């Protein structure tokens, strides 16, 4: 048996086709659920056991999230898959749609069954059109095969999935902004409470999971939660897809067990480009604090290990930087992203992201002032934890991480009006 949960068949030709997915026992988990009439409680039990944690970045235990969904709610409920993968450095979900869409569909159907959802929505990032089309094709195949839609596999149970193509706003990856966007409104996060489990899509109880999370479900159902857990480490079950980009010789997606040492992942990605020195790594996508290379080399790739080092595993988006990188320039680029992507709804993020960017831009362009670094820390601190959604934190954390580990580079920039590297 493959040690991979999701990319187990992607070496085979046209792995995205239904016929090929069926050849590798695809939809067996769904068949098992329906044939054995598994109870939602039993499925949730296995998911809890698996220690599967949300792969979208927050790492919230999936089984626990599923158990929040009201059981005896009289109206409609929804399951939403979040494929609005817009964070710089993150490119795993598009590969799931591209290479193994049926496993996601199977996971969503099982999720819909477990949660008692009327329908599922997959919100697909605006900038990946080909993957969106492939997903639609897979949905058509599944419907034609009786796996999706009315009376699934003769069970008498109906469940359909709708793909919703976004328009490229990063903030729509925030689950409540995503719901607003599906509803046809401006993509802006809702304040919580109420949480989507009680007031979600169209005001109905809704569970939102990441693509990779849902694509992991068939494995857990088929092989049991314990088996999945054992692929990783306690409280960090399963495998995880890491998107490695930046200064490596072989960038790409790597599905490895949780808890694999970073050094092994770096080796899989071909090591630092042209044999240069590893300077720093952003371990979980552009929103998490950067960590110096020497710290990273001692870490394992799982939620707890990275968190202990002061950053986050996030969506497993590993951005590798070698010693040619100017950290001021890197931060300027990151801050520009958050400045551009802030939705503008709440004050600290709307006003603060522009302030951060402009100050960093000044420093990068030789117009920094000695007081700027304290100012940046203060402004980032004033955004952090004060906003409706996590985008504010996402804008603040890179600044805080950079200043924590590479403050000397910024000081050099301010003093000498140029880069030290």
């Amino acid at each position, binding site marked *: 048996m493959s040690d991979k949960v999701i990319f187990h068949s992607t070496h085979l030709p046209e792995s995205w086709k239904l016929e090929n997915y069926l050849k590798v026992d695809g939809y067996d988990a769904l068949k098992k659920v329906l044939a054995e009439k598994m109870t939602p409680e039993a499925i949730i039990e296995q998911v809890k056991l698996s220690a599967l944690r949300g792969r979208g970045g927050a790492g919230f235990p999936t089984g626990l999230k599923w158990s929040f969904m009201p059981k005896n709610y009289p109206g409609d409920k929804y399951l939403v898959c979040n494929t609005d993968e817009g964070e710089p450095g993150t490119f795993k979900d598009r590969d799931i749609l591209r290479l193994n869409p049926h496993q996601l569909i199977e996971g969503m159907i099982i999720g819909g069954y477990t949660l008692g959802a009327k329908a599922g929505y997959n919100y697909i990032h605006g900038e990946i059109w080909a993957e969106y089309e492939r997903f639609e094709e897979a949905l058509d195949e599944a419907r034609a095969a009786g796996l999706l839609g009315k009376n699934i596999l003769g069970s008498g149970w109906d469940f359909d999935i709708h793909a919703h193509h976004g328009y490229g706003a990063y903030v729509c990856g925030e689950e409540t902004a995503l719901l607003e966007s599906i509803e046809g409104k401006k993509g802006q996060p809702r304040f919580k409470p109420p949480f989507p489990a009680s007031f979600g899509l169209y005001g109905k109880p809704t569970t939102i999971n990441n693509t990779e999370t849902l694509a992991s479900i068939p494995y857990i159902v088929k092989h049991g939660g314990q088996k999945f857990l054992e692929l990783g480490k306690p409280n960090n079950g399963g495998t995880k897809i890491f998107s490695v980009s930046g200064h490596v010789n072989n960038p790409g997606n790597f599905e490895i067990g949780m808890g694999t040492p970073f050094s092994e992942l770096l080796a899989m990605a071909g090591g630092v480009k042209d044999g240069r020195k590893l300077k720093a790594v952003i371990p979980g996508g552009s929103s998490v604090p950067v960590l110096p290379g020497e710290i990273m080399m001692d870490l394992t790739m799982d939620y707890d290990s990275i968190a202990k080092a002061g950053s986050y595993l996030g969506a497993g988006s590993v951005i590798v930087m070698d010693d040619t990188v100017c950290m001021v320039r890197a931060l300027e680029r990151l801050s520009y992203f958050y400045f551009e992507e802030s939705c503008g709804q709440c004050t*600290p993020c709307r006003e603060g992201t522009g302030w951060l960017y402009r100050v960093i831009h000044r420093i990068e362009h030789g117009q920094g002032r000695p007081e700027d670094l304290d100012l940046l820390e203060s402004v980032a601190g004033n955004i952090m934890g004060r906003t409706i959604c996590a985008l504010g934190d996402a804008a603040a954390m890179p600044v805080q991480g950079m200043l924590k580990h590479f403050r000397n580079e910024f000081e050099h920039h301010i003093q000498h009006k140029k880069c030290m590297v």
Partner: protein
Amino acid sequence: MLNIEIDGKQLTVEQGSTIMDVADAAGIYIPRFCYHKKLSVAANCRMCLVQVEKAPKPMPACATPVTEGMKVMTRSEAAIKAQKAVMEFLLINHPLDCPICDQGGECELQDLAVGYGAGASRYTEEKRVVFNKNIGPLINTDMTRCINCTRCVRFGQEIGGMMEMGQIGRGEHAEITTFIERSIDSELSGNIIDLCPVGALTSKPFRYSARAWELTTRPSVSPHDGLGANLSVQTKNNRVFRVLPRDNEEINECWLSDKDRFSYEGLNSPERLQRPMIKQSGEWRECDWPEALEFAVAGLMRVRDQQGAEQVGALATPHSTLEELYLLQKLVRGIGSGNVDHRLLQSDFSADSAMQGAPWLGMKIAELDQLNSVLIVGSTLRADHPLLAHRLRQAVKRGAELNLINPVDDDLLCRVANKSIVAPDAMVATLDQVRCALAGESVDAIAQAIAASLNQGERKAVLLGNLAQHHPRYAELHALAQQVAELSGAKFGFLGGAANSVGAYLAGAVPVTGGMNAAQMLDTPRHAYILLGVEADLDTYNPTKTLAALQAAQMVVVMSAYKGKAPDYAHVLLPVAPFTETSGTFVNTEGRAQSFNAVVKPLGETRPGWKVLRVLGNLMEVAGFDYDSAEQVRAEALNGDISVKLNNQLAGAALAAIICTNRGQGRSYTHGLQRIGEVPSYQADPIVRRATALQKTAAAALQGAWMNAETLSSVGVSEGADVSVSQGTDSVVLKALRDDLLPAGCVRVAAGHPATAMLGGMFDEIRVERAG
């Protein structure tokens, strides 16, 4: 109930409330911008961040529900730090142009910046600039000042009923705007000026005219529609500069209609009559009060003595004060005439003898939003009663069913459960069908649906609007509506058209046995008339007939704040004070008497109407005119409990007679067309007519003659063509306009408008021909 603690204060609070709710109730102030008690929670400004024990980060008080044992600190170091940080963010891109900002002195941002802002800014980067928008004649925009609190957006969605503003763009480029260059046309639009916590949305008519701290604020009551909105009138140098809402949850809440807010411009109109004038030997000249009064008295007495007291008629606008109306009828009756009326737009008085009291709303205004089902008969609801329409919209939002029998299908901005849009004449038959349905007879589907709607739920009402009250078959509508209400167990009421529609009845400004009503006084012209606040060329059902009667009279005494066209038909002009320059009382549509005092001194030689009438009474030697104060007049006029005098019910025998006599009778029209001649909101009284900014709005424009496609083709004209419209001898050229929601055989031409006033009766037969 839950026990919580805010700033060390132990509170027992209701489950489901937010920290903001309970703090406000406990008198603990938490700074806020986006939060507003009447709007949904947005939680976007973050100014109300407070510290909550055990919470890892500060929480927005407006959006955080209280939980048992919660400990909130609104003034702790962490809370203040968060609040100050938000204030700093709000100010970095704000222009800080307070010295040239109209909001200065009454700005929530300015006020809170004193407490939470720093002395100097740490922000040295470029500031954001947002282009201003022209959103119409009422509201000025300075969008760079906007802090994106979205109160104006939410107001449109939740209260105004139409989303006229929205936020476009992202991040720092987010801006509040209308939908692609559109103007703001809601009849409640001015409220967003009050809601805007900064100077982004300010009053255009008021702009740059005064500073908030220079103004004196005095309470008053709106003289316009039957709501009786509570006003704060702001004055400076004896002139009204601005009108703002005065909170009254039971009436206008914290809102004002645009008419109530912006009409004040009419008070400062150059058309104000400032000195008495008399017409001698065909020439008008100004004179002093004694001469004018003597002239008037001599003229009236001459008619009375030579032609008889019944040759004197008095017509008063229901926008007059209770005191004026009371003294007017007392004066007229004192000299022996019973001819006094305020129902200038009414055309059918045949139910008068069956009436048993003053027609009123039949319930409290605040009950409107609690209704489960309501039938509105004959009303341009949003134009005539903007805030009653708002209350009904709130009821609909809560699940109420709104049913409508009307000749026009204007957008009510809410779901209408059942509607029958029929020609004015056919409204009677439709209402009769509803009555039949309730009585168990088999009728058409729509009447059945309306009846079914009225049969369900606890709280329901049948309400007659202005249009029904002006209808040529008003008595039948009244009788049928009464029956419909009775059969369905609904409350029965009238949407009062004017500020004193109820008060005028209480004051006795209606004819009793032997007296002539408004129509009779004009159908059978009198030799002398006293007009109180009436612009005869605009304010009556059939202005052509009115003018003919007046111009043939020997003595027409006009008591008015404006000169208008009065010199064409009057003999004496007496300048009497509008509501801001006199004390008085309006009894609103729910029967609530609201008294007010003058907020400025009378303009020029203007005098309060009640004082002028008092002197006239003395000069004409009518007994009982020795009043020292308006309060004395008021006490005499109201004479005890108002509620016992309110009665919408027609007496039984007459009721049956009206229904039986007329049942099934439709009227026929020689030329086949009936006019729908409702009075546009901004033409409804002399003050609003002269409110310059309101007159520039889209709603004020006289658009033309509206017909549906079928009617257009039946008269052989195409949409947009010039048509000659006539009722009697005079014709007017208007643009033919298409509204397929109108019933066939009807032409909608606004009344009360200078351009159409000469046409004739508001719902009479009308002819349309290709012009030229």
